[in-house]
């Protein structure tokens, strides 16, 4: 699984951080999403999928590569 984020779309809600804190963080200055792990380990995938689905700005895209 490969994650890409669209910083432009991110509204700083932080839902992704709550769903998968190992994979997502937010910048201190403006709250924009920070991707900690672009290719997350197997055990994190369910959480990452949830993070992508709950992001209120559809800023997180997943591909199965």
């Amino acid at each position, binding site marked *: 699984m490969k994650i890409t984020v669209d910083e432009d779309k991110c*509204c700083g*809600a*932080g839902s992704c951080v709550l769903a998968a804190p190992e994979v997502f963080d937010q910048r201190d200055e403006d709250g924009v999403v920070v991707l900690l792990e672009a290719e997350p380990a197997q055990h994190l995938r*369910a959480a990452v999928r*949830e993070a992508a*689905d709950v992001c209120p700005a559809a800023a997180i895209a997943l591909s199965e590569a």
Partner: protein
Amino acid sequence: MSTPARVLVAGASAAGLATAEALRRKGYTGALTLLGDEEHVPYDRPPLSKQVLAGAWQPERSHLRTREVLDALDAEFLLGDAAASLDVANRTVHTESGRALAADAIVLATGVRPRTLPGQEGLTGVHVLRSLDDALALRAELLAARRLLVVGDGVLGAEIAATARGLGVEVVLAGPQAAPLAAQLGPLASGLLAELHNENGVKLRLGAGVDGLTTDAANSGRVTGARLCTGEVLEADLVVVALGAIPCTDWLEDSGLVLGNGVVCDSRCRAADGIYAAGDVARWHHEHLGSLLRLENRTNATEQALAVAANLLGADQPYTPIPYFWTDQFDAKLQIHGVLTADAEVSVVEGDPAARRFVARYARHGKAVGVLGWNMPKQARLHRRQHLGGSR
């Protein structure tokens, strides 16, 4: 309830799509149908008053998912057809075009529609903003307008005013409150918002409600402005009415479901056996607050959909979120967690309002009820956890 073999979702937008996605993520393999009255694939509304209205985004950028992701959901999308009635006993939705869609479980996610002023429908030059089509129609006229009048001093009105001002149009914002969002945010934050709008050239005509729209003596059918309840007339060649919204429950009137400012649900978001509601249309019993609550914000659409999906699959869990919404106006990004009230005791817990970067804690009788972040999204979330608790 055993796992339903067929799930039908009425309303194919944020809450409807999130319900479908959550069902699949949780392993649901049955049939899934999403019925939506709009022709568009599911798109996001928050950018409509911001990036889309400003022209910074092409409309497609507001789409919530790519075609491939929607296909992978393995759901049937019936778009451009509206739910017209619900037969609760047989769990069947009848549509405008004559379809009869039966299912074992039905999720109501039809959202809300804008409230309008009397006489508005007959006039040109008057807009509301709820759909993508609304945003594009407003934008088209905005580019040629000299003076926009925004009727409504809530979140949507203030955002539209800010975006329109960014396009160089003269903007007047009218409404009954002392400052934009005063009822939601209280004097400190709404005062700062008023300052921000002033500095950026939005003319605030606040403190008097709008009584009705005006048209010229020749009765051309085009709006010329609005009349305040003080009798004063504000002139404009373009008007947006942003006076809040009404739940889309007309089609449920004969269903026997309890309606009252939304679809009334129990703490599981259940309106009747096998029938649930999610998003802006749902008014459910919030067990922690001990009252019925209906939220109109983007994260609730998703989180409530998650709760509904879980309960559909047998979780039997109450939905008890800490409400959250954000708004962007000019360079201000506000994050609002919890239930703020205008009379709450407000204390700044980080940053500095003068620097327009701060987090404030709202309390009643000494107990924290909310957290507001101004250009400090991450910090606001951390304070939320500290002051409001909760798992999210």
